[in-house]
């Protein structure tokens, strides 16, 4: 009897529970719907006045490039207009996959990859909502997920290809949208101006790089030229203490490295190098931003490894398999043998090389301009007198021949599943980043901006260096660079903000006729800007102030059709052999054998393909 009662009670409870669930679900969804309709009506009523015009107007931009000069001026930062910065009537959702920094500490508690100050800004101001589909914590994982997404034809609406090979793969697999109408029609005047710095008369490298089989299928990435210019960094305070002139050639650098070790400044090793998976030089595929490589040293030997070059007879050759490169590798092997270079290059997995720089036990490393400041911010937090300086490494003939990078390396790909509205939204979100980045509070790392894509004028850093130096020297005022000022320009997007914050970082006592040192700067008050100024004023000083003797470009910057399978083999061979020779695992005497192997195992085929391609 009692069992029956209990059973009946349970059954009753279940029925009530189910009913309650059903009700709850219904009410909440209706509530949602009604709030949605409310908000959209509210929007349309408030925007009614302005949105009349863009209602139903689709800009026809399927034809030729619309020059920047033909576009109306952009709305000022933070404001909307009815084209490049329009607010959509209804929320446009874009799903995306992105690499995130697992050790980032700048994101506030409770925020996430698709709910942070940047995504909220886009949603509130432009009605563009980014929804995260997947993330990856490091480059290798990201590439793996992206490959699988391409292979299984399941790309999110938007994802950034780390190099052009992924773009070509995705485009050939017919996974990408034709972005030309949206990009040509909705990009801001500012973006157009920057694109136009990459070429002339409608023939722009930024555009052609994004074009696969005659279809423009990605947002271009345009980075500063100096990202590919390699210099070396050294502790000037140590040099001064030991009474050594700043080294100009590799043999002087070697002597300085020795002195650092003998004096006990660098107890373990003097020169930091790459971690596991790194490469000692940037090649034609990743032609820039190779931090902790030895690029500067190769250049001092007139070697340009990893580039397709043209000899005097007009024939294409490979930059790695040259006598210059052999000499450079032999020199590095000698340094390694003497213990000047981190003995564990290519092995450490936890950023050990950067740690030596940050905690002040290593006094020399190489990389592009941002390696100082942006790259080693902790060095100055740990020791506000760590006076890192940047210098070019000259050849023995006193030449400074620099390595020129591709326009950009990454590509923001938009899936062919995107609606026209989503494509416009993606272009607009990109406009917004370019225009408003300097107004954001970047204490939350800018990497959290959804699908962050850098678009900057090629000479931005040098221009800023000279402009800001002008202010310090009293040749111009901060106001000149603000909106409405005499020298205000949208092309250099961060300049206004940088000019305004200059006095927060650079000490009043600084004498602008002398080189800037860390002791002239305030590290902590505005640490974000300190890092930026250190990178520009010190890291980019060589490229901003010294005219290079030669600029060396690769003949191509991406793998061509039919080249992939050979490249797979010879790139592995090359990466391994060079590192093994530097670390003495292989003798430099085997150099000729390596060159022969490189050519025999596919290198000759690759050169043939490149030669054919360039011949047209």
């Amino acid at each position: 009897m009692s069992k029956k009662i209990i059973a009946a009670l349970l059954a009753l409870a279940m029925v009530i529970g189910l009913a309650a669930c059903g009700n709850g679900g219904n009410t909440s969804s209706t509530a949602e719907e009604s709030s949605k309709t409310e908000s959209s009506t509210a929007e349309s009523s408030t925007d009614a006045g302005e949105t009349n015009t863009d209602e139903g107007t689709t800009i026809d931009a399927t034809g030729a490039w619309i020059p920047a000069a033909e576009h109306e001026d952009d709305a000022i930062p933070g404001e909307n207009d009815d084209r490049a910065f329009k607010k959509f009537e209804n929320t446009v959702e874009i799903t995306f996959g992105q690499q995130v920094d697992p050790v980032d500490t700048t994101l506030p508690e409770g925020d996430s990859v698709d709910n942070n100050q940047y995504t909220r800004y886009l949603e509130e101001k432009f009605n563009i909502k980014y929804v995260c589909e997947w993330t990856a914590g490091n480059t290798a994982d990201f590439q793996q997920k992206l490959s699988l997404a391409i292979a299984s034809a399941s790309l999110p609406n938007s994802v950034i290809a780390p190099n052009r090979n992924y773009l070509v793969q995705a485009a050939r697999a017919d996974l990408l949208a034709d972005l030309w109408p949206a990009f040509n029609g909705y990009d801001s005047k500012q973006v157009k101006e920057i694109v136009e710095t990459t070429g002339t008369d409608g023939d722009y490298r930024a555009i052609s790089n994004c074009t696969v089989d005659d279809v423009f299928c990605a947002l271009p990435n345009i980075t500063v030229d100096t990202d590919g210019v390699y210099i070396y960094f050294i502790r000037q305070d140590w040099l001064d203490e030991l009474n050594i002139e700043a080294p100009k050639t590799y043999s002087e650098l070697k002597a300085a490295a020795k002195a650092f070790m003998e004096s006990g400044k660098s107890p373990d090793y003097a020169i930091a190098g790459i971690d596991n998976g790194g490469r000692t030089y940037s090649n034609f595929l990743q032609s820039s931003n190779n931090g902790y490589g030895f690029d500067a040293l190769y250049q001092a030997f007139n070697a340009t490894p990893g580039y397709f070059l043209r000899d005097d007879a007009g024939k294409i050759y490979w930059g790695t398999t040259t006598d210059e490169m052999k000499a450079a590798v032999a020199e590095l092997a000698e340094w390694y043998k003497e213990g000047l270079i981190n003995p564990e290059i290519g092995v450490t997995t936890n950023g050990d090389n950067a740690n030596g720089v940050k905690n002040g036990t290593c006094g020399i490393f190489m990389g592009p301009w941002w390696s100082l400041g942006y790259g080693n911010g902790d060095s100055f937090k740990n020791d506000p007198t760590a006076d890192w300086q940047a210098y070019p490494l000259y050849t023995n003939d006193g030449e400074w021949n620099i390595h020129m990078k591709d326009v950009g390396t990454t590509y923001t790909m938009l899936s062919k599943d995107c609606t026209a509205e989503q494509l416009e939204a993606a272009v607009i979100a990109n406009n917004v980043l370019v225009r408003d980045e300097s107004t954001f509070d970047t204490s939350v790392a800018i990497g959290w901006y959804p699908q962050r894509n850098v678009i900057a004028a090629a000479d931005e850093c040098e221009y800023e260096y000279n402009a800001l130096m002008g202010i310090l020297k009293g040749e111009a005022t901060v106001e000149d660079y603000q909106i409405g000022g005499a020298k205000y320009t949208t092309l250099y997007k961060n300049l206004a903000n940088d000019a305004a914050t200059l006095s927060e970082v650079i000490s009043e006592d600084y004498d602008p006729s002398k080189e800037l040192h860390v002791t002239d700067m305030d590290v902590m008050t505005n640490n974000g800007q300190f890092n930026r100024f250190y990178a520009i004023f010190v890291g980019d000083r060589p490229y901003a102030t010294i005219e290079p003797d030669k600029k060396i470009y690769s003949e191509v910057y991406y793998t061509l059709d039919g080249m992939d399978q050979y490249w797979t083999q010879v790139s592995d061979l090359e990466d391994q052999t060079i590192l093994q020779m530097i670390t003495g695992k292989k003798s430099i005497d085997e150099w000729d054998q390596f060159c022969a192997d490189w050519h025999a195992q596919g290198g000759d085929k690759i050169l043939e393909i490149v030669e054919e391609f360039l011949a047209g």
Partner: protein
Amino acid sequence: MEKTKTRKALPTWFHYSLMCLPGYIWLFMFSIVPMVGIVMAFQNFNPSKGWFGSPWVGLENFEFLWTIPDAKRALWNTLVIAVSKVILNIIVPMTFALLLNEIKNMKFKKGVQTIVYLPHFISWVLLGNIITNMLGTKGILNYILGLFGAGPVMPMTEPSTFQGLLVGTDIWKEFGYGAVVYLAALTGIDLSLYEAAAIDGANRWQSTWHITLPGLVPTVVLLTTLAMGNVLNAGFDQVFNMYNQLVIETADIIDTYVYRLGIVKLQFSLSTAAGLFKSVVSFILVVTSYALAYKFADYTIF
């Protein structure tokens, strides 16, 4: 009355089969279904055209693979590493089990067994990093060597000894776990045999040699046969987490090669071909070893 009838209606194996069902579903989903992808090895695979639309290229991928020195190197490394692991993973746990079996103090015995059993549960992702740091220039190994004035050594960068390192760390991680099976087999040996041997005047060595070892033979044969299927599995997890560019020539195995080819460099067809080649060789080895096990030890698994 009725209830017992329905029970009888179900065959006795029914509930056992039911227990196996999840395993079969898993096998079907993750091992049978993906077999379709094998066709990629004979195609120039294009994701948009899929498995059924991509152009066929016959054996071109295999031919190309055969011309690549890296592929041959990976095959050779896989064989060396995997065979060493198979052999040592039998000898070491068995020796350990024999030694442990002789210990009278139960607390000590259990303690040791638990401690050596533990590393089995640490993932290679962690262990790879721990080992890299322990053997690095600032690691414990060089610290101890430093105390005796010996120069720093870097086993992680030495191609000639790296295979030994891989095999050694794998044995260290797994021998405790492997020993469990042998300890179980040891308890299964009839104690009266030892008593009879003692009466006949046999000493410890003699009874080990003539009773314990022959008693373990069926277990050894079983485990060896099962291990043959893994002869080309040199352990992706371990190698992937421990290798680097400097030792790649002796550390690169088929699985890491396939990973780099397919996932890092997007050569889907080539990497499928390499994976398929491995599977075919493994299949031949398994079938042969099962046949041999039946012939020489009269042992059948199926």
